[in-house]
């Protein structure tokens, strides 16, 4: 048996770097889709819950109740895929954790705290519908919202530390000999990155949930329940779009000042110069020239620092030694993802403007099919926007894992079988992802079939809800 295993190990001697990178990217990319739901859905559920109790609105109450059932599924998948990430830090990047764990790891201690709180109260909230008093039950949902926000801030603080490592002292051998946890958590990049992610969580969560109801309305389900299901999350998402543009602009300027090479990749700037054009699309060639795309003259310089305008000097990729800048391919990925993020983000903003104008001038949401079609694709578009932004951050940092201190290739595991775990993870996550969507859809169908709530044999469904809801609503009014 052991001989066989040894033989197997010998066969699989494949460089782990690209596979570890791919596995980390894949699992994070999967997990990050569930993050907005975990962070912002509880907030939207509480809005519906509040409306339900305060205004005796049974539609809103049913909505809140169903959302909490959906949340149970997405939170569970988010929890386990998040747990995998804690394994992967060690399994894929043991030398990174071995050398930097004492600094990088600190924010996760706090994240664990918030995640624990979130898990506890989400359990109470989801299962507390029937027997807790309405307002007491409502309040058990509030810690979920707070823990979601602070938990994601903690995780992003760790990622921000990789971009702006601080709060430690090294000895002559490069070992960490002293750590200032406050400096680690509140590193320079943390406020911008954390704000960007929390707002993204509300933006993506809002558009994603609203898109489901937009599809329902396009299919003719234009009852009050569907309107509520659309209005609450879409309003949250729409409000976030202008905020996100401001935060994103601030973060970009931070990158301009602190990670010039990443900024050069974003703006496709091979050599240091002023009057840098903002190139839409296009790509960098092997010889260092930029081809294709639509250049807007001087705009990138102007955006980097409006006070000096076109004269603003932007450092090029060549400002760093060749082994300390992203490869040509990575640069093109960063630039393309940047364009995707900004482009889709702008479209989402325009959709939000349409929605706002309609409310201002007509006192109702836009009724046309074209708006609903836009809203229906806005969910997926928002997810793509977020993924693209995350790729910009991560790939733009290459080749560093700890900016300026440790390269990815020096952090990776020595295990050469990572390509096997990569495929195992992809297959497993594909199954879990498919099952998640199928389960959520089947729950939705079941809830619809149970219109009027007479369906009694539905496990985990709205059994005997009518009495509950009306009783609770009545109680609340009194």
């Amino acid at each position: 048996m052991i001989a066989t295993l040894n033989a197997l190990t010998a066969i699989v001697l494949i460089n782990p770097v690209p596979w570890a990178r791919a596995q980390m990217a894949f699992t994070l990319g999967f997990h990050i889709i569930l993050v907005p739901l975990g962070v912002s859905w509880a907030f939207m559920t509480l809005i519906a819950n509040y409306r339900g109790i305060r205004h005796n609105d049974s539609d809103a109450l049913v909505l809140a109740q169903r959302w909490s059932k959906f949340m149970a599924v997405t939170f569970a998948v988010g929890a386990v895929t998040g747990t995998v990430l804690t394994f992967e830090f060690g399994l894929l990047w043991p030398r990174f954790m071995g050398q930097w764990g004492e600094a990088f790891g600190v924010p996760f201690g706090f994240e664990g705290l918030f995640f624990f709180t979130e898990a506890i109260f989400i359990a109470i909230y989801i299962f507390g519908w029937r027997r807790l008093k309405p307002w007491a039950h409502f309040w058990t949902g509030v810690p979920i919202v707070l823990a979601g926000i602070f938990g994601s801030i903690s995780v992003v603080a760790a990622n921000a530390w990789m971009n702006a490592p601080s709060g430690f002292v090294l000895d002559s051998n490069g070992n960490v000999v002293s750590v200032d946890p406050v400096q680690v958590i509140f590193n320079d990049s943390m406020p911008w990155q954390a704000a960007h992610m929390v707002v993204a969580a509300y933006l993506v969560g809002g558009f994603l949930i609203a898109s489901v109801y937009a599809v329902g309305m396009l299919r003719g389900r234009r009852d009050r329940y569907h309107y509520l299901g659309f209005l609450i999350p879409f309003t949250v998402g729409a409000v976030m779009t202008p905020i996100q543009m401001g935060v994103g602009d601030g973060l970009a300027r931070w990158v301009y000042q602190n990670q010039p090479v990443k900024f050069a990749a974003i703006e496709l700037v091979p050599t240091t110069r002023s009057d840098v054009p903002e190139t839409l699309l296009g790509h960098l060639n092997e010889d260092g020239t930029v081809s294709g795309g639509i250049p807007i003259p001087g705009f990138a310089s102007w955006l980097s620092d409006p006070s000096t305008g076109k004269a603003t000097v932007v450092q090029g990729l060549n400002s760093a030694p060749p082994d300390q800048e992203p490869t040509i391919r990575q640069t093109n990925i960063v630039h393309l993802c940047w364009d995707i993020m900004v482009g889709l983000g702008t479209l989402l903003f325009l959709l939000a403007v349409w929605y706002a104008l309609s409310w201002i001038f007509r006192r109702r949401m836009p009724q046309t099919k074209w708006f609903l079609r836009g809203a229906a694709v806005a969910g997926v578009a928002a997810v793509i926007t977020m993924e693209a932004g995350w790729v910009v951050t991560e790939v733009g940092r290459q080749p560093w894992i700890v900016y300026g201190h440790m390269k990815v290739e020096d952090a990776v595991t020595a295990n050469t079988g990572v390509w096997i775990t990569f495929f195992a993870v992809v297959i497993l996550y594909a199954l879990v992802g498919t099952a998640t969507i199928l389960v959520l859809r089947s729950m939705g169908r079941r809830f619809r079939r149970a219109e009027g709530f007479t369906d009694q044999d539905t496990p985990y469904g709205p059994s005997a809800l009518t009495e509950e809801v009306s009783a609770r609503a009545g109680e609340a009014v009194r």
Partner: protein
Amino acid sequence: MSTAVAVVLLLAVVAYAIFGGADFGAGFWDLIAGGPERGEHPRDTIEHSIGPVWEANHVWLIFIFVILWTSFPEAYASITLTLFVPLTIAALGIVLRGASFAFRKAVVGLGYRRVFGAAFAASSVLVPYCMGATAGGVASGRVPAGGQAGDPVDSWINPTSVVAGVLAVATVAYLAAVYLVWDARRLADHDMADYFRRRAIVAASIVGIISFAGIFVLRADARYLFDGLASRGLPLIILSVVCGVGALVLLVRKAARGARVLAILAVASIIIGWGVAQWPYLLPESLTFSAAAAPSGTLAAVLVVVVLAAIIVVPGFALLFVLHEKDLLPEEGVDEEPGVDRATT
């Protein structure tokens, strides 16, 4: 300060074993409950019992990892490099288990429920085995210091790991059965109370037998641990045996509440005994806790987290358990008869 963090780490392992472990154990009983008809009743009881609390229970594992990588990063690197295979299997098993448990609750069709149920139950056995094997690899001194990789195969396929893995599966099954007896009695479900009581007794006996066999395995395979258990750890081992036997007696006499307390004590004291026996080594005979410890700033931050956890998380966790025990967090649906409330039947 590294001692304080080491104690916290050990307590987190204890908490994971007695809270999270019981969830895995419940999955074990789910697995062997038989066909869809015969196993329906026990499966309902299991689902009802672990429903609301399972996610919270598994956060202990995240705490263990976080404490390890912040406070003892070098050891964490060595462990993950060496025990790559069992830890990877455990990670994938956790995904499979958590997702399929949530899915099973959310779907109606029997076919789907069986697929998700099987995935849930099988991974519930796989994960504790891998965790036990990992612990066995560490405890028997097979993980080298210095962020180095040990033998990728022998580190988890060895006598101590096998015993620890099997013992982990048996122990979580035992704990779960004891809890389920209590749960079933609380719900006045005497059939199920008896069903799990018989299983708890069998599991207790198996845990006893494996532990006894384990003594000889450790003596031959993990000498440092064995010597520690036979000296410093001996009082804890004796305590564990006394509690274990006491729990068995109470189970036979149908005193579920006392049995639950004693079973927890038995498991907790054996884990603490492991820690005491291994002391002062985190990786026996190659790396001590104090040598592996991170700078004091990090350790202070970890202790702050622990204090905050005591202030924020522990009351929340207690609230969750109290509400669950008082049946204020009822499972909805799952073959519930219309109009019949479980708590009052």
